């Protein structure tokens, strides 16, 4: 423990190190931190008992102590894994910023460490105040990481947007914690049980839910994500999207552990919001031109899927049907892990692309698979996984959630049946849209021929950059094929929410194992047919010729489908929902010789434009109205005093105050 507490001191070394050692040192520090914390987590998981330790730290005069239960342990593990991969990935990626000053890099890595540390602390602290501090530090550290390329105004804009929204979330959490404290007299999570026991559950829960939901990125609190992720360096986006937004999920789960009544209502609320988030996220993702923005919207979608799982689980708990509860929570929490894997992988491979091509514009790219095959494979697998297709891990979690739907369609009351049907519908739609989106992303970026930029001097990233990505890949595949290895842990986790230790139903286990049979069967058939093909075309002529272009083969790469045209027939129908803006000056009648024109589209987030901007603009207008005080005239200043004096005296005389 002492070692763990001393680790932060090591983070100050960054300010002394020269540029080129910093990233290496960062990896070392990260690994050290991760190793220690994972040790605790693994002990907890293996022993199955909660770990309680006093830190050798005094905080406002009282001892700090950490509590690691199963939930915390799980989140600690995924945080560590993703952050380590990110740190290793950063080694090559940060070389892009050689012209930066030393202090910039030092600050970057310093806050990188603090992001990791604060996330661990968020998982470990059960004292609300300490938790809030860790929570805020997490936001601040990630903010500093986001504004790394601070010369660009849009980056700063995104950063401030992010910081302010995180602050709003934190304020809500603070209010919620104070409410708990005033009711129960203590600042711990366990106090929640007491609070929920004899107060109305929904208001406080909603307060917490919005507070955490802003971090997690539930619609309509998601507006920071699409701005922050493109602004941040890619490894940071990977970590933020992979694990940091999951801290919001952690918080929600933590609260749900204590919620006493109104479970059904809460479950339905979560389910509906999540379904909306999922569809809105992926629906907006399709029409993005910026690859990282696209991925950011997919984070919203996956948060939605996780939420759907949680909602189903809650409904299961509410109707005390353990099977549904386990399927829902298990699927949701498993998807937390899965998303952290494939989303970070997607971001890293995007980073590799950006490293070589210096653009994130999908429409400019193309044909990268020939230059960087490894990255292409990584991106492909990650895309298949995120679409929830077999035989990868995304399928497993979605499959479990689907089973949850099916079971509760069978078991529960008629209202729930219909609700479940719609939830299932939304999940299906999400899946379909995800496929649409990622065929586009992968196909346009990596396949075909380059559209705008030259890729002659593009080369594959270094092995030590690929290495962590391949690690993630293996984990994805292993989970996808042998979910049985970890499913136990998840059903245990899910069991926590039913407040009783229940043995996992045979049927579910059977399903889990049959998934792997299914996957293996598929792989087997594929291999057989592949060799069949090899055998067949062994002694046949295999020649290469240009693509069939209806007899016209010249300048084919300009004629290729682009991301926009690929999505056109979708966005054309969805126009009013997507709120897509077109920048094009139509040719007027008198304009006989039209000048050169450009056609550009981009999409604004509906919630942001129609909801938050309006509110804030309105408030700003009101506040601006009030700006009449500082006139610069002495008389006015004295008049204010006089007026206030008279007003207060009158109020006093008439006993208003």
């Amino acid at each position, binding site marked *: 423990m002492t070692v763990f507490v001393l680790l932060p001191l090591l983070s100050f070394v960054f300010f002394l190190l020269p540029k080129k050692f910093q990233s290496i040192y960062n990896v070392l520090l990260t690994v050290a931190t991760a190793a220690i914390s994972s040790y605790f987590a693994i002990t907890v998981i293996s022993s199955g008992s909660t770990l309680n330790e006093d830190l050798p730290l005094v905080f406002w005069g009282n001892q700090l102590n950490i509590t690691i239960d199963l939930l915390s342990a799980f989140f600690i593990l995924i945080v560590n894994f993703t952050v380590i991969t990110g740190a290793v990935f950063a080694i090559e990626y940060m070389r892009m910023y050689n012209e930066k000053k030393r202090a910039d890099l030092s600050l970057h890595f310093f806050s990188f460490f603090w992001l990791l540390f604060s996330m661990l602390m968020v998982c470990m602290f059960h004292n609300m105040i300490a938790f809030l501090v860790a929570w805020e530090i997490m936001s601040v550290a990630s903010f500093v990481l986001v504004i790394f390329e601070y010369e660009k105004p849009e980056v700063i804009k995104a950063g401030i947007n992010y910081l302010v929204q995180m602050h709003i979330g934190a304020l809500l959490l603070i209010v919620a914690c104070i409410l708990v404290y005033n009711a129960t007299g203590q600042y711990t999570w366990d106090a929640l049980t007491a609070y929920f026991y004899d107060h109305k559950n929904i208001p406080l829960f909603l307060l917490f839910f919005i507070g955490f939901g802003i971090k997690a990125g539930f619609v309509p609190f998601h507006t920071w994500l699409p701005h922050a992720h493109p602004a941040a360096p890619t490894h940071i986006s990977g970590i933020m999207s992979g694990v940091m937004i999951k801290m919001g999920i952690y918080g929600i789960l933590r609260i749900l552990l204590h919620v006493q009544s109104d479970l059904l209502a809460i479950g339905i609320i979560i389910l509906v919001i999540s379904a909306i988030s999922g569809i809105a996220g992926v629906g907006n993702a399709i029409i993005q031109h910026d690859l990282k923005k696209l991925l950011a919207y997919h984070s919203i979608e996956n948060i939605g899927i996780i939420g759907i799982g949680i909602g189903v689980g809650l409904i299961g708990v509410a109707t005390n049907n353990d099977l549904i509860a386990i399927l829902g929570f298990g699927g949701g929490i498993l998807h937390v892990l899965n998303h952290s894997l494939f989303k970070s992988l997607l971001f890293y491979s995007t980073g590799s692309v950006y490293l070589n091509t210096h653009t994130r514009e999908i429409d400019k790219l193309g044909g990268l698979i020939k230059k960087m095959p490894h990255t292409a494979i990584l991106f492909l697998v990650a895309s298949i996984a995120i679409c929830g297709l077999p035989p990868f891990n995304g399928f497993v979690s979605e499959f479990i959630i689907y089973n949850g739907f099916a079971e509760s369609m069978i078991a529960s009351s008629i209202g729930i049946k219909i609700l479940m049907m719609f939830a299932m519908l939304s999940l299906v739609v999400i899946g379909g849209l995800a496929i649409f989106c990622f065929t586009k992303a992968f196909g346009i970026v990596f396949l075909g021929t380059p559209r705008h930029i030259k890729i002659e001097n593009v080369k594959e990233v270094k092995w030590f950059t690929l290495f962590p990505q391949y690690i993630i890949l293996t984990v994805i595949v292993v989970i996808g094929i042998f979910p049985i290895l970890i499913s136990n842990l998840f059903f245990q986790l899910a069991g926590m929410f039913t407040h009783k230790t229940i043995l996992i139903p045979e049927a579910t286990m059977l399903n889990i194992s049959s998934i792997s049979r299914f996957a293996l069967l598929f792989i087997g058939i594929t291999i057989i047919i592949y060799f069949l093909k090899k055998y067949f075309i062994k002694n046949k002529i295999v020649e290469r010729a240009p693509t069939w272009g209806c007899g016209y083969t010249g300048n084919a790469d300009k004629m290729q489908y682009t991301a926009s045209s690929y999505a056109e027939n979708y966005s054309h129908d969805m126009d009013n929902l997507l709120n897509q803006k077109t920048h094009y000056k139509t040719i007027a009648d008198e304009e006989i010789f039209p000048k050169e024109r450009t056609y550009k589209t981009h999409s604004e987030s509906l919630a942001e434009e129609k909801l938050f901007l309006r509110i804030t603009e309105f408030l700003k207008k009101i506040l601006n109205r009030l*700006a009449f005080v500082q*006139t*610069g*005239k002495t*008389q006015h200043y*004295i008049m204010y005093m006089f007026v206030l004096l008279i007003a207060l*005296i009158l109020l006093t005389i008439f006993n208003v105050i």
Partner: protein
Amino acid sequence: MTNLLTIIFLISLFYIAVSGRLFVCINLLIVQGLMLFGIAFLSLREINIINLLVVLTETLLFKAIILPYYIKKMVIKNKIKRQVSPFISGFSSLLTVSILIILSFVLGIYLQNAQLKLIYITAAFSGIMTGLFLIVSRKEIIQHIIGYIILENGIVLLSFSLGNKTPMAVNAGILLDILISILLFGLFMNKIAKTYKDLDIDQLNKLSD
């Protein structure tokens, strides 16, 4: 007798409020100083003689002689224009002052107790409020200073009503105030007069948001 003096004090307030010429205001300050002197002489009976002398000389010297003289000198030195240009017309300012006097009378009714005579409070507060009113309603800095001095007179009047109890407090306060006012007002007046062409408050609004 004191009541009579107080009444005269009040009347002088009216006069100042409507007077369009600077020197009239300054002369009225002298009048007020004399009134204060008389009031002090008549009302502060119970305090010992030295103290009384201090108070009397202080009132007479500063209120009635030094301040008005100083201001006059300043006006002449800096060639300040002699007529007053208020934001609001003489009639309405007259009205305002009378309203303020009524207001202070009402206030006095609420506030009076063993030491605080109603008439004193009324006069004092009307002095204070009129001073404020002058400051608020006039453009010229010189007028602001005059307004401030009237305010001070009001305070002095108020303090005389308590004078029997804690004279030193009163003196200390007043003395310090007067000193500061003379010192810095003069100083800054000259500075501002040097910097700007005429001493008009409208020029002093660079610092504003």
